[in-house]
């Protein structure tokens, strides 16, 4: 989607290749072409077979499973649209989907903050850019299992440091992760915290491509930093912002790790906070109902495709391509 900064546009393409060959004998040319075709197929074969066996064929199988019901001893029985009818009437599915959409909205709210930080870090007179970037990036490389453990401790109702900080200002904090009213938001905070450094890095790379002269010219015209941010940074960065929001939506809709790690089965907050992928996982692999799980996976796929398509439509109104 965004052109990699370090990759130049491919120069001469195929047309010029055959042109620059000169006139070798036709026979030699065909032999070379044949050998190239053979090598091409041989070289994509290992990956192609792996993708076919473990990815492409499974997609077709999952589609088929969506129309079947699994017995206790494995095997499956064709049930037509039964899974999808059940899905439409299943409140748990719609709650989980709503939760996923709420997380997505909340994580998107973090994007403007990341834009602001990227702009702050892009100031030419600012020092220590690399150190800031590295520190902000730490949650991205840290194992989610470790992050979940850490936040569970921070969120603890009794001795968690968060409630202790709140106590300093006279607020009596709840038990964040087990209270159905607070758990979804407590989870979303971690989601934003984890995505921040990732988005920041992509946005900072986008800012490198904004011509410095624009800032100089506008400074001469008397534009202050806020004005520059709104009139230069945001429009020039809009393709990158668009990319970041598409990636965030797709990523957050697939949120699983945090819910699984922070909401043990039976947690009173689970129904209020579980995501569609968590429901997919527990349906397919814990409750052993892969037929219904497959239907849930297809629902997720449709939602992702729809939201991505909507974003691509809306982008025409606000994304400026230079």
């Amino acid at each position: 989607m965004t052109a990699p900064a370090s990759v130049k546009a491919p120069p001469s393409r195929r047309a010029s290749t055959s042109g620059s060959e000169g006139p070798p004998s036709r026979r030699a040319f065909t032999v070379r072409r044949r050998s190239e075709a053979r090598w091409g197929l041989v070289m994509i074969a290992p990956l192609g077979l792996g993708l076919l066996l473990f990815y492409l064929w499974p997609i077709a199988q999952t589609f088929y499973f969506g129309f079947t019901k699994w017995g206790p001893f494995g095997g499956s029985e064709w049930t037509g649209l039964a899974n999808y009818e059940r899905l439409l009437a299943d409140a748990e599915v719609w709650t989980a989907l709503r939760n996923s959409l709420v997380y997505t909205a909340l994580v998107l709210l973090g994007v403007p903050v990341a834009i602001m930080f990227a702009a702050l870090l892009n100031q030419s007179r600012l020092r220590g850019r690399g150190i800031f970037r590295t520190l902000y990036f730490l949650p991205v490389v840290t194992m989610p299992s470790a992050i979940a453990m850490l936040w569970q401790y921070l969120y603890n109702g009794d001795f968690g440091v968060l409630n202790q900080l709140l106590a300093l200002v006279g607020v009596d904090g709840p038990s964040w992760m087990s209270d159905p009213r607070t758990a979804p938001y407590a989870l979303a905070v971690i989601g934003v915290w984890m995505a921040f450094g990732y988005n920041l890095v992509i946005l900072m790379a986008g800012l490198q491509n904004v011509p410095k002269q624009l800032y100089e010219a506008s400074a001469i015209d008397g534009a202050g930093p806020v004005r520059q941010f709104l009139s230069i940074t945001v429009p020039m960065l809009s393709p990158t912002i668009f990319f970041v929001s598409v990636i965030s939506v797709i990523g957050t809709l697939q949120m699983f790790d945090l819910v699984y790690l922070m909401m043990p089965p039976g947690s009173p907050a689970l129904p209020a906070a579980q995501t569609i992928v968590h429901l997919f996982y527990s349906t397919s692999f814990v409750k052993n109902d892969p037929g219904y799980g497959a239907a849930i996976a297809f629902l997720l796929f449709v939602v992702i495709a729809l939201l991505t398509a909507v974003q691509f439509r809306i982008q025409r109104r606000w994304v400026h391509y230079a």
Partner: protein
Amino acid sequence: MHSRRWVLAASYTVLVMGVLVVVGPFVWQALTSVKSFQDSVRIPPTVLPSPWDWSGYAKVFELMPLGHQFVNTVLMAGGRTIAQLIFCSLAAFAFARLEFPGRRFFFGLFLVVLMVPSQLFVIPQFLIMQKLGWLNTIQALIVPGMFSAFGTFLLRQFFAGLPRELDEAAELDGCGPLQRYWRILLPLSKPGLIALAVLTLLWSWNDLMWPLIVNTDPEMMPLSAGLAALSGQHNIEYPALMAGSLMATAPVIVIFAILQKQIIEGIANTGGKA
């Protein structure tokens, strides 16, 4: 210019506050790992451990098979990474530099895999592992992750950016496709290969859902699933939990510290996800 200096000072203030929010939790984690159990559940909490107690680092080895899980994680992440470097670079070279029948069609198929959420293939993948009798084995952790449409896409972009004259010159010197791949393009693609390697390593190291599905025996789990199982047991040995978390994450933090430029560029250039 007073206003300029003011802007810079305000920027630093905001950036440092951001660092506190991002890094603060990790500092708290490190401090907790060297507290005694009583200290870790004290109300109100104390910031510094008193006295410093390193027993959490030993204790976590009793709570989970940390050594086994470390080896599993290294094999899983390393195996996937090496395989992806080979398979993806071969296919990427073919897509970027060779003419063969069905080229566009196959590349289109690869893009399908790239765009579809992983939930669409995970059930059949599990069934394949089950049929092969691979549940609770190392190869179950490694094999499906050896193939990546993303890696092919990333490297193809990279190869396409290298000048074509290189291959043409090599071809005139009588180099076949394999030699062009191995002797010309690969040595020139180190940055691309490193980016793919660290991204694969990073996402594999932290991968959770797939290991949870295929390997339920604690000795065969990677660290990610091992830590999850440990905290799922309602364990409140916080110093040990924090020590385990830090040890599980330390290797990627070290790799990140060494190769952060390549990692960040790789992510910035691709928005990458393995």
